[in-house]
């Protein structure tokens, strides 16, 4: 009960922006810039020890999953700065040009059409030294999740999308769709689940062109992922999970809004069960868990929270408790972690800020710190700030001749 009275601390916006900036410019800087900021020597050594641990973990991640996920990492960093409204302040125009140039360099062409690869991790130095980049090989194709991420990142950077190969992108979507309606991560791979389907739908919606996907077939795949709990699993027969439920709900809504005036959304009774399941995932900590009975995790504050917004039930969430949970997930030197006391990372930082963009705590709860908790509105369907989403709607579709 004390939690209800206790005022929210400040949301450390500056520190969170710095965390994302550090991740963008390389993890090594983390150590030095923090050590420099601490005057008291003993505190400094303690902090450095703690950071060394964080740093070593980052490094392990670095060598591991991030190398072919660099684009996703960049998106969470750039996206966080955008949500915090400090992109202009932190990133001078020349840096943005460099970022855009790097992102466009990931758009590759080949026999399956065009899209974006996660990074040049499979591209050899000699191959690309020519002026005209060669077609990709079967091991260096575009990646559907990365393509979605790249389009969002470019929109955040206010690119004009004049370099986007639209027909190539539609061809790429077609190459990724499988006979069961789902989409593979890269053409020909058997790695497919609801995540990739959402990316295909989001890209079609951004292009305002659904000719690259077989919507009814894809929608029937989504239906096979629904479970008795009211959520959706990652693949047919899998347990209901917050992230994939967001993806199913958002996909159905995107298709209903864009693909030929057919209503693909759920029936009223299905909707009721889904809303109730999503709301039950907010546990006594104030945060949302991803599955029934699991611990709360900052990222599910977005996934479940955004699904509820799309279903028109956002006003039923306890925003004050949500904010109180995320306040406890803040790392004192910047960044937000999945749960209190864990290490921060750009993924959880971005999704927490995105959740707060939909769920603002009350003035009663935030008091003097209210300003720090205010965000511009978010488009839950595309997972971007509303003005970024408008930019996408204006610039990504093909211009009528």
């Amino acid at each position: 009960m004390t939690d209800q009275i206790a005022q929210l601390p400040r949301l450390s916006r500056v520190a969170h922006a710095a965390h994302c900036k550090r991740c963008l410019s390389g993890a090594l800087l983390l150590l030095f810039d923090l050590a420099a900021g601490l005057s008291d020597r003993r505190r400094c050594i303690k902090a450095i020890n703690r950071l060394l641990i964080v740093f070593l973990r980052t490094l392990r991640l670095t060598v591991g999953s991030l190398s072919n996920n660099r684009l996703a990492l960049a998106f969470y960093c750039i996206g966080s700065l955008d949500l915090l409204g400090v992109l202009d302040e932190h990133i001078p125009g020349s840096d943005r040009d460099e970022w855009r140039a790097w992102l466009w360099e990931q758009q590759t062409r080949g026999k399956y059409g065009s899209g974006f690869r996660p990074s040049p991790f499979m591209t050899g130095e000699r191959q690309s030294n020519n002026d005209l980049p060669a077609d990709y090989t079967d091991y260096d194709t575009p990646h559907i999740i990365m393509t979605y991420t790249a389009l969002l990142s470019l929109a955040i950077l206010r690119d004009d999308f004049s370099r986007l190969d639209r027909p190539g992108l539609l061809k790429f979507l077609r190459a990724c769709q499988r006979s069961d309606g789902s989409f593979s991560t890269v053409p020909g791979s058997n790695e497919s689940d609801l995540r990739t389907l959402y990316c295909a739908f989001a890209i079609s919606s951004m292009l305002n062109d659904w000719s690259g996907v077989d919507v009814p077939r894809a929608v029937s795949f989504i239906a096979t992922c629904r479970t008795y709990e009211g959520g959706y699993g990652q693949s047919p027969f899998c347990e209901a999970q917050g992230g994939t439920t967001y993806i199913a709900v958002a996909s159905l809504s995107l298709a209903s809004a864009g693909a030929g005036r057919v209503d693909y959304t759920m029936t009223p009774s299905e909707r009721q069960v889904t809303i109730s399941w999503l709301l039950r995932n907010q546990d006594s900590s104030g945060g949302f868990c991803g599955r029934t009975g699991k611990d709360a995790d900052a990222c599910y504050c977005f996934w479940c929270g955004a699904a509820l917004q799309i279903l028109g039930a956002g006003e039923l969430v306890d925003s004050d408790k949500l904010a109180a949970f995320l306040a406890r997930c803040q790392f004192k030197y910047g960044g937000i972690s999945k749960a209190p006391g864990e290490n921060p990372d750009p993924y959880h930082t971005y999704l927490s800020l995105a959740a707060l963009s939909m769920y603002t705590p009350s003035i009663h709860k935030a008091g003097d710190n209210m300003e720090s908790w205010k965000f511009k509105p978010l488009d839950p369907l595309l997972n971007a700030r509303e003005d970024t989403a408008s930019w996408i709607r204006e610039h990504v579709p093909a211009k009528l001749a």
Partner: protein
Amino acid sequence: MPKKPQYDEPLFAELPEWADVKPVEQYEGVNPVAPIFYTPEYTDATNYFRAIVQSGEKSARVLDLTENIIRQNPAHYSAWQYRYETLIALLPTPTPSSHPLLTAEVELMDELAVLFLKTYQVWHHRRLLVQITREPQRELAFIKKGLEADSKNYHTWSYRQWILGFFGGKGSISKDGDEEIDEDLWASELDFVDVLLANDVRNNSAWHHRFFVVWACGVREGEEDRDRVLKRELIYSKQSISLAPSNPSAWNYLRGILTHTHTPFPLVSTFAQAYAYPRDPQASDKQREIVDLENPLPSDTAELPCAEAMEFLADAWESEGGQDKIEAAVKMWTSLANERDVMRKKYWEHRIRDAHVALRGELKKKAA
């Protein structure tokens, strides 16, 4: 012991058997966004991998190289893909499931699945392999061990459901290309779930699996009498609830089977009622001694009322309709909103508003 990349292990650049390959450095181009610091070992191995992919070589040493990369970065999907294709190129067709190369690969995957439990690629590679070995029973035994260590791992569970659906579900294809469902695969699934739920009755993954086995993926041999199955499952979930009343997983399962079989919720109202109110100190011992298998009572130590039971009962009443039932449901929701589940206060208030609107509509209809 899992093998880790050792820093004193020679680089590929230092190995004479790789001297014929000219390594290909990674292209970086313009100023890289979010630079990644690679270790010398990773840079070395991927330089050789890029060279191999360019030349198209598919030989035994490529298996060493891709294993080395995967151990350093299990999410390197191109290394997995190329490894699979190399394996296929090295295996004879048709492939005997006992081929040493295949056996070695499966054993390696046993090790890597434990090391990199949460990596998608580990599991996808395994799916490809089992489609060659066609030994789903071995996989079920392997997964069982994995779940003993981490009983809620999503990847592990998904893989089990995929195995059962692929080899034991509708439209399964046998090795000879005939449609053939392997019913034996399912033989011990329910016992398996029972053991997991006996260890932890709140394990939602196990509850989900129970639903999958009993309801979602065809009808098992000997379970053709669905009324009997429903009765058995109702008793199972009620007894689980009586052991631990505030267990959303068990209540969700109960709701799930009622909805799936189009059984009205009020059929279970009597059961839920015993959990939806504070304990009645006046209740005579005699009353408590009557053992009703269909409606097991909460234990003496159970914390009552239980919010899940209150919610269930209110839903059951609402589904019955009529002024009395709706008012009873509203009373229940009010209690949830103000005392028992304050976190979802706004939701309960929303349910009350909706019910009032529906009731007014009903009354108007009657009046007209």
